[in-house]
């Protein structure tokens, strides 16, 4: 059981304990697709989408496993069920809205095995959130992830027209910017603690 207010869950996941900048989750996509604004926003959208789905799956699974008394299957069932569900949803989208599929489609299968997704499922279980809290937490984590990704993409596009020294070009520079962003986000620490 957890009494946290929805607002505080939201602020916490977006700003204070941003998945990327404070928890180091989703670093690979963060490094990989933050080069272009367009892909960044799409990736953000796709991740948020999968987060919500997997959060619901995990919530259901957790209740189920608790009921049948097999908590040890949690991890393995999360990963399998989430992957399967996303696959189904992907097929569904492809049928129903090819436009949406074109926008998000290519990212979906890659994302399922991404740590943000699994981490959300594990964290929400650990924190004992109820259904609505889970939903808000998923949306907020997605928003936080998207925020970090989009900020980074804007900066990297800007830096396409710069001449960083050879030795830091590429991943090193991206990591350094991530560090500075993480520093900047520290300003939000303790938001709502008083």
């Amino acid at each position, binding site marked *: 059981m957890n009494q946290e207010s929805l607002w505080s869950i939201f602020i916490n996941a977006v700003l204070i304990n941003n998945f990327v900048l404070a928890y180091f989750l989703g670093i690979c996509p963060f490094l990989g697709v933050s080069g272009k604004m367009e892909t960044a926003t799409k990736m953000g959208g796709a991740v948020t989408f999968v987060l919500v789905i997997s959060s619901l799956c995990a919530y259901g699974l957790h209740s189920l496993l608790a009921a049948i008394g097999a908590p040890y299957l949690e991890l393995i069932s999360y990963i399998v069920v989430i992957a399967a569900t996303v696959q189904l949803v992907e097929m569904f989208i492809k049928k129903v809205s090819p436009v949406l599929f074109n926008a998000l489609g290519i990212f979906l299968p890659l994302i399922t095995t991404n740590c943000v997704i699994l981490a959300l499922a594990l964290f929400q279980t650990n924190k004992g959130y109820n259904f609505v809290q889970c939903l808000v937490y998923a949306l907020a984590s997605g928003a936080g992830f998207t925020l970090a990704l989009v900020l980074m993409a*804007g*900066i990297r*596009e800007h830096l396409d027209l710069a001449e960083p*020294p050879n030795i830091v070009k590429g991943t090193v520079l991206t990591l*350094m910017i991530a560090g500075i962003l993480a*520093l*900047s986000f520290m*300003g939000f620490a303790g938001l709502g603690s*008083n």
Partner: protein
Amino acid sequence: MQGKSQIQNVFKKTLNISTSPHLVRGIGTNDIMRNVVWALLPTALYAVYAFGLSALLLLVTSTVACVLTEHFLAKKSKQPSTISDWSAVITGLLLGLTLPPNFPLWMAFLGGIVSIALGKFVFGGLGYNVFNPALVGRAFLQAAFPVAITTWFPVFSPDRFSSVSVATSTLPLMEPATDGFTGATPLSAFKFDHISTDTYDLAMGFITGSTGETCAVLIILGGIYLAVRKMLNWHIPVSILATVYVLTALLHFSNPEKYPTPEFMLFSGGLMLGAVFMATDMVGSPITTAGVWIYGALIGALVVVIRLWGGLPEGVMYAILLGNAVSPHLDNLIRPRVYGTGNRGEKVRG
């Protein structure tokens, strides 16, 4: 006609050719930077007057660290040294001005190195940095040494010209002795104990705080000097300060118990120095006027949010860094309508 012979005598020089325009306004980037240094000097001198030798050593150390780092890194990457453009001096001076007067010198030196190396050099040097270098340095120091950076020194202490603070001369890598006191700046006094400070004292600089943030009047004068000379975009400080004022005024009148007066917010902490000298760093701010208003409003709003609801007493630095992070987006999204085109850039007819 005497013909060719005379012609050759008359014009000895070979002509220079260049492409138009052949006139330049005459203000160079180095002139701008140099003037910013002049505009900061009154604030720096007041800081030395108010805090004594410690502040002097601090400012010298941070400036020297920045200039040396800039020079060294340029040499290291086999490029001509860029210290003559004065921008490293500004970075160093501003870094020093945002630190507590009794900040250990070795930490200030480290901050200078971080400012230039991480805040500027890795992005490609002058003009390419996304974040304000001085604030990158300060943010690094604040995260690395949170205690030292919230330990303050009394203003106008009687022996300030004869001795330096013990903390100032801490040996490298060592923990400073605490001869200052913590948490007594107007902002933390307000945040944690709801004690407000007189606005007049704040504006005139009779209150302790970071080295350069105490005397708002001198900061504003420096800003006006630069704005008049068109070396500073006045929209930025105005939009930040206006946003802070309006938001705080609304909150204050809704609950005067809980929220401070807008005047207190304007003149306390690093807001004035940040709004006038740091948010205005053109490299990290949007290029269009509309973009600049949004940037300013965003910074102002973040300052209010962090100060009033956040965990930390002060948020100007974080607000500006976040503003810096957003400005490439603002430049991307906000483009003035090009002459002879519609809002989205398509051609207009008739």
